[in-house]
């Protein structure tokens, strides 16, 4: 049931692609083929629902029902620890009415599975669970089986039903025929039927239930294969030598400095890429440490202490208006009250527990890469460019990694292993050091955000003005930019870059709000549509994108975490200025019913006390307690969440203790309630870590937060808040993502609770005790 559970890596080569071709030629089967193309009439209604991969008219994937009533299915959406393997098995079993144990699901292997682009947290679920792809292929197959059974049982399809791998007559369930018997030795090749009907959620037996994750027994007993445990015969070990400073270029490698060291296979240099290969991993580490490499320093890094001001002054900016009603300055001038504030968010890192690892076997005419990349087909394309091979000669086999939360080092280390293997002609395993992982990964973007809002005499918001500066460099490599991560750049490829553009042209396209750049409370009118979730008509959303000194890329709730911190903290500041209850004030300015609903549900579950913030009568010494709320429609169309935080602030030490997190979430129909809860709980605590502790630091030349002493988080042995969640099920709605909703709302909920407790607003992440103390010291004396 779990592919490649204990098998060696070589064995994995044989099981998918080759077997599939042979299977298509030989076996009797009912096969539904679907290409990774968008089908006419199936245009995605959600931005995240698209297949995200490259279209192809070729047969890209299929599901098959075999003569022994098994189901074989293939998916391009991978298990990253978020439970998607189990949920997809549930989907297949549900739509086909077979037990879970009859489903064999193969994930993310360029030799076997469809190109479904990237498996990113929020996009993974919609792609296969709505009206296309895997869900529709299963529905097509089930309807075909019912038609076949109709002849066999001499009964019209409407009188038939399916259960437990068989079709039966509803009025007489003893008259039944197993799927395998319908297939027999014959071959049925079907194409996707866009009119096939998925099961109604009301009829679900497996979907919608908390099926325990199928992989956890293997994980807790150390039987699951991770990319870190892949062993290939003849495999040797590589270690990379990164530059000592950002932007440095290679001057000289003194190979004599390591000559004769035990186990040395080769020193590898390609442009600015330097690595060593040795027989044993410890030998590789020792050789890499001893190798004398001279570098030419790059330009000095901008000082961290003044970095946010530096961003504002940077002229090389790409400016974009997402919204501009054209009247913002007049509306603000006419407002009774204007509120303004600036929010700051540092670079964050993914900080995977396991430093990234990959195994590559690059031989003439055939390269195989075992990789924890989230994007096997894009990886195939960019690795092929890096290696100078045609893409067809590269196979990428997704193999589980340490939780990535976005683009950690998994892609770059795959390039490392590939380059080294190509040079030595043997399979090479590379696992990055902690420093190489943390100092060179693609960080989540820093942001500085100015907000202004106007209130009229009745305490209603009449204008909202957002202006942000954020740096970026590189990102996901996609299909053609290996330079978007450090290894590709060292090997001579440039990061993709957007050309500077000032001033921004007026907005012409309807608001998608994919990055939650627009607040929830504006009407969002642009390009002839008003797609916002709120009521404020005078609106301006202006973004300045600068060049980052560090590589950046998607980190769980990328940019949405930063923007939502600023929007939902600021909404709280406006509510306080209007002396309004934060929940009521939000509901008053929202016009999206589902978003209003989760706000009310979270407040109700938290026994929200209706009153303005801050709480009155709190002493200015000792512990102060408060509550705060935050909400967002994730990506503008991909999951509704509201979160209440309850905190205690020690006003002497400045330490914030989050005591309780209570959320409500509506992500459409729920495939696996416990899986959603696990994601919500983890996301909420991950968000707490980022809000209270995490910050990338650097000096004049290099990242200094390159281990767990320098980059702070909290251990398993830490008392964490209770996390409660109200799951709002919407069976009739489209499936949304559930992996990045909770985290998006956390920072503002905590900051708003601190304000409620102390009357002090925190506008810079992380909320360190020093910052809290400084903010408390700035309170006006009564």
């Amino acid at each position, binding site marked *: 049931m779990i592919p490649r559970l204990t098998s060696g890596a070589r064995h994995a080569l044989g099981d998918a692609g080759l077997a599939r071709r042979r299977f298509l030629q030989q076996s009797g089967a009912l096969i539904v083929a679907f290409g990774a193309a968008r089908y006419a009439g199936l245009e995605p209604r959600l931005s995240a629902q698209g297949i995200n991969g490259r279209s192809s008219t070729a047969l890209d994937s299929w599901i098959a029902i075999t003569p022994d009533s098994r189901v074989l299915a293939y998916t391009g959406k991978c298990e990253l620890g978020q439970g998607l393997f189990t949920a997809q098995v549930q989907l297949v079993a549900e739509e086909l009415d077979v037990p879970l144990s009859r489903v064999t699901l193969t994930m993310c292997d360029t030799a076997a599975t469809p190109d479904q682009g990237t498996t990113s947290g929020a996009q993974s679920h919609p792609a296969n669970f709505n009206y296309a792809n895997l869900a529709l292929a299963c529905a097509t197959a089930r309807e075909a089986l019912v038609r076949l059974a109709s002849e066999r049982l001499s009964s019209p399809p409407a009188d038939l039903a399916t259960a437990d791998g068989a079709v039966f007559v509803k009025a007489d369930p003893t008259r039944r025929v197993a799927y395998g018997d319908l297939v027999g030795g014959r071959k049925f090749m079907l194409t996707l039927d866009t009119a096939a009907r998925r099961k109604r959620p009301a009829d679900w037996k497996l979907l919608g239930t908390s099926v325990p994750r199928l992989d956890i027994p293997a994980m*807790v007993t150390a039987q699951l294969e991770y990319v870190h445990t892949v062993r290939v015969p003849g495999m040797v070990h590589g270690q990379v030598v990164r530059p000592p400073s950002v932007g440095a270029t290679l001057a000289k490698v003194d190979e004599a400095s390591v000559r004769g060291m035990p186990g040395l296979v080769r020193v590898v240099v390609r442009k600015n890429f330097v690595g060593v290969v040795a027989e044993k991993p410890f030998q590789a580490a020792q050789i890499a440490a001893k190798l004398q490499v001279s570098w030419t320093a790059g330009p000095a890094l901008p000082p961290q202490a003044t970095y946010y001001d530096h961003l504002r002054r940077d002229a090389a900016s790409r400016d974009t208006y997402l919204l501009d009603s054209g009247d913002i300055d007049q509306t603000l001038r006419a407002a009774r009250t204007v509120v303004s504030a600036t929010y700051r968010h540092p670079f964050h890192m993914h900080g995977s527990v396991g*430093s990234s690892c990959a195994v590559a076997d690059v031989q003439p005419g055939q390269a195989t890469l075992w990789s924890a990349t989230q994007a096997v087909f894009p990886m195939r394309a960019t690795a092929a460019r890096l290696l100078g091979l045609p893409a067809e000669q590269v196979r990428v086999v997704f193999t589980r990694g340490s939780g990535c939360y976005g683009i950690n080092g998994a892609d770059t280390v795959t390039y490392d292993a590939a380059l080294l293997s190509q040079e030595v002609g043997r399979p090479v395993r590379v*696992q990055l050091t902690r420093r190489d992982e943390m100092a060179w990964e693609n960080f989540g973007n820093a942001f500085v955000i100015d907000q202004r809002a106007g209130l009229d005499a009745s305490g209603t918001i009449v204008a909202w003005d957002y202006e942000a500066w954020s740096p970026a460099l590189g990102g996901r490599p996609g299909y053609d930019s290996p330079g978007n991560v450090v290894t590709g750049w060292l090997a001579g490829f440039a990061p993709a870059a957007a050309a500077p553009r000032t001033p921004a042209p007026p907005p012409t396209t309807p608001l998608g709000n994919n990055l939650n750049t627009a607040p929830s409370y504006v009407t969002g009118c642009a390009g002839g549509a008003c797609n916002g979730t709120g009521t404020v008509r005078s609106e301006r959303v202006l973004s300045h994108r600068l060049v980052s000194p560090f590589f950046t890329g998607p980190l769980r709730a990328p940019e949405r975490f930063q923007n939502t911190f600023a929007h939902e903290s600021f909404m709280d500041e406006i509510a306080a200025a209007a002396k309004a209850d934060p929940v009521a004030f939000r509901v008053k300015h929202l016009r999206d019913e589902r978003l209003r609903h989760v706000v009310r549900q979270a407040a109700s579950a938290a026994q929200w006390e209706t009153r303005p913030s801050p709480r009155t009568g709190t002493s200015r010494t000792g512990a102060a307690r408060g509550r705060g709320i935050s909400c967002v429609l994730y990506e503008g169309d991909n999951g509704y969440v509201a979160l209440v935080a309850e905190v205690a602030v020690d006003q002497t030490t400045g330490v914030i203790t989050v005591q309780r997190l209570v959320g409500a979430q509506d992500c459409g129909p729920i495939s696996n309630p416990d899986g959603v809860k696990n994601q919500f709980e983890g996301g909420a605590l991950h968000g707490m870590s980022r809000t209270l502790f995490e910050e990338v630091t650097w000096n004049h030349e290099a990242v200094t937060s390159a281990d767990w002493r320098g980059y702070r988080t909290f251990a398993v042995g830490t008392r964490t808040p209770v996390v409660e969640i109200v799951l709002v099920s919407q069976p009739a709605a489209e499936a949304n993502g559930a992996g990045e909703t909770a985290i998006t709302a956390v920072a503002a909920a905590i900051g708003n609770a601190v304000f409620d407790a102390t009357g002090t607003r925190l506008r810079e992440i992380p909320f360190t005790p020093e910052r809290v103390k400084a903010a408390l010291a700035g309170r006006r004396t009564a």
Partner: protein
Amino acid sequence: MQVTLLVNGRTHTVDADPATPLLFVLSDDLALKGPKFGCGLGQCGACTVIVRGQAIRSCITPVEAAQNTEITTLDGLGSIDRPHPIQQAFIDEQATQCGFCLSGVILGAKALVDRTPAPTDDDIDRALSGVLCRCFAHNRMRRAIHRYAASRRA
């Protein structure tokens, strides 16, 4: 030099530089899947093994110091068909996401409960103060540890 290790009840002799971190020998020479390289600095716990009843960090333990003593890795506790009760508790609570940290969490908790059969939350805090889980399955993990301790007392 020749190094003899007693791992999960079996004796292995390997040829290794005596300064090699124990982790590299376990995961590379012996191909065990439980202990994993997380940081190489003793800061995260992913490489944890149990030696003399203590959960130790194999990434900063030289292999020569681990000779002639029983070493238990996550692989050695139970199997998929017959998981150890603490592994079963983690299954019952669905107390993981990516699973990379589990050697540190499960073996750290097992070593604790072996010497403190009824651990308090303070005990758990101390035992797992050096173990990181970046999926933040913290609350489930704590429930699983209490469940295991309770089942052991029953």
